[in-house]
């Protein structure tokens, strides 16, 4: 059992207007897990990730990464946003997008050089997109775009990865390729947190799960808490998901 806590969330409450999207979330994510965040639409899954990453400002609560605020620990964290959150007709190439992963460590004004390019090419290789490095990003398929996003996060060489629906709109080949990379990351001792929609694949892909529906319903190892009881509490209807080991 891991005992080091990678991400700790205390009393987190987030609201866009009047209604809270997240209410009083307490969450501890142990180091080295591959965790799914599941819940219905509007449950606040993406909001939770965005609040942890400081993209959204919470009304109350705090977040710490290995015991320190996120601002101090940025270099330990990488983020894969939803594919649909950007305009893929932007005039740039696959390699260029992956290079953006190096901008954080470069800091202001400094330009990327050979070292950064090499890292980006390696990341492209890992996700099997090296032959497409010069391709305009709008000419890539949805699955390829998702791999580019993944490569951009890999290039950050972080300890904790947050991914917002990386399997959305990708074909079976890409899904397998991505999950293999995530499992590889876990093997290296990294922590991976994934907003996930497909309940069927939770037991197969993940070892840790958080049920979320505005409030936190449950969090823990998949084998202990991924059951009909928690699913019903989260989704509000009766579920018959067979948990295969």
């Amino acid at each position, binding site marked *: 059992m891991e005992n080091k806590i990678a991400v700790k969330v205390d009393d987190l409450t987030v609201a866009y207007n009047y209604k809270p999207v997240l209410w009083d979330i307490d969450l501890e994510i142990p180091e080295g897990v591959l965790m799914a965040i599941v819940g219905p639409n509007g449950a606040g899954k993406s909001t939770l990730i965005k609040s942890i990453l400081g993209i959204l400002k919470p009304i109350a609560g705090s977040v710490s990464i290995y015991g320190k605020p996120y*601002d101090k620990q*940025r270099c330990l964290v990488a983020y894969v946003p939803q594919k649909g*959150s950007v305009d893929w007709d*932007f*005039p*740039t*190439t696959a390699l260029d*997008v992956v290079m*953006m992963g190096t*901008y954080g460590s470069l800091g202001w004004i400094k330009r990327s050089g050979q070292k950064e390019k090499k890292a980006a090419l390696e990341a492209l290789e890992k996700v099997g997109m090296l032959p497409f490095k010069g391709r305009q990003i709008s000419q890539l398929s949805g699955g390829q775009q998702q791999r580019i996003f993944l490569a951009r996060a890999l290039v950050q060489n972080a300890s904790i990865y947050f991914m917002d629906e990386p399997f959305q709109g990708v074909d079976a080949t890409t899904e397998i390729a991505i999950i293999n990379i995530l499992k590889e990351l876990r093997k290296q001792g990294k922590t991976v947190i994934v907003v996930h929609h497909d309940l069927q694949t939770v037991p197969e892909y993940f070892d840790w799960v958080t049920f979320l529906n505005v409030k936190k319903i449950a969090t823990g190892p998949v084998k202990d808490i991924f059951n009909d009881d928690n699913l019903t509490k989260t989704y509000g209807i009766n579920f018959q998901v067979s948990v295969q080991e």
Partner: protein
Amino acid sequence: MDFTDYTFLVITFGTAILGAVCGMLGSFAVLRKQSLLGDAISHAALPGIAIAFLITGAKDSNVLLLGALVSGLIGTFWIRGIITKTHLKSDTALGLILSLFFGFGMLLLTFIQKQPNANQAGLDKYLFGQAATLLIEDVWLMAIVTSICLVVLLLFWKEFKILLFDADYTKTLGFNTKFIDVLITSFIVLAIVLGLQTVGVVLMSAMLLAPAAAARQWTNSLAKMVILAAIFGAFSGVFGTVISASQNNLSTGPVIVIVAGVFVIFSFVFSPSRGLLFKQIRFMKNRRDLQLFKTLAFMHHIAKTHEDISHPHSIKLLNNFQGYTKSTLKKLEEENYISLSGLNWSLTQKGFEKASNLYNQNTKDDA
């Protein structure tokens, strides 16, 4: 018209610089989907001009443009405020600020015109611009601002690029996205204000958008797009000035905008990768190829039932098949896929191989 005339050279130089800086910054506005922001800002500048005149009573262009800058900035921040603080969408916020500020500016202009002050005449030149009033000092100011803009662009290129593409991600990397955003927007406001004297409130946004929209058609690289937009903008300025100078009484601003529009139309039609013309040509070629291959596949279907693949068959056999036309047969023969003799056709070895590999070939092309 004497094209070596000093005044003419000053004006041409001014419009060229203006076109270049607007093209560069316009690229950012277009990519941020803030095309209308430029329009709102320029209209929002009008009351500033009027108020600056009312306060100082003088028509010094620098003072008036300072007023324009202030009210343009106020308009911009109100637009941002409306978008973030209310449920209104950005197009509503832009439209609202644009018409409110412009209306207020027009009101002030008519008020000023009724004043018993001989000095007031000519303020309305800011509506459509009057390049003829450009002085060498104005051009110097443009050149200085453009140089500063260039330096900032080069320094913060990486930051601008990543913010334009993915603002949330930029934030997680630790960049102050608000700062980058304000930097870009301020320069856009500055460029607009500089252009008011030449092109005017009403048409200013075209100076930002047209060169950028045209440039986007020719390249898939942000750097090249910005450079191309600057070139298109500069040429629009020069051509526009030359055309309006050679024809009496043609107002320069509108001519510049129309020249920029011609760049846009030309780019939309003739760009090799995104242009309508080549898209249509590619589309037609693909259709023809598909027709050809469908016919070939049908022939293959018939031929493979025979031991000798080149066994001749009657052309009549193909009549049931929709893809069959005389020109397709001819084309197939040209490609050496079939041979024709009289009313019969027969597959060649090459044609047979091509037809049996058709689908594999297609998937190979895809990858």
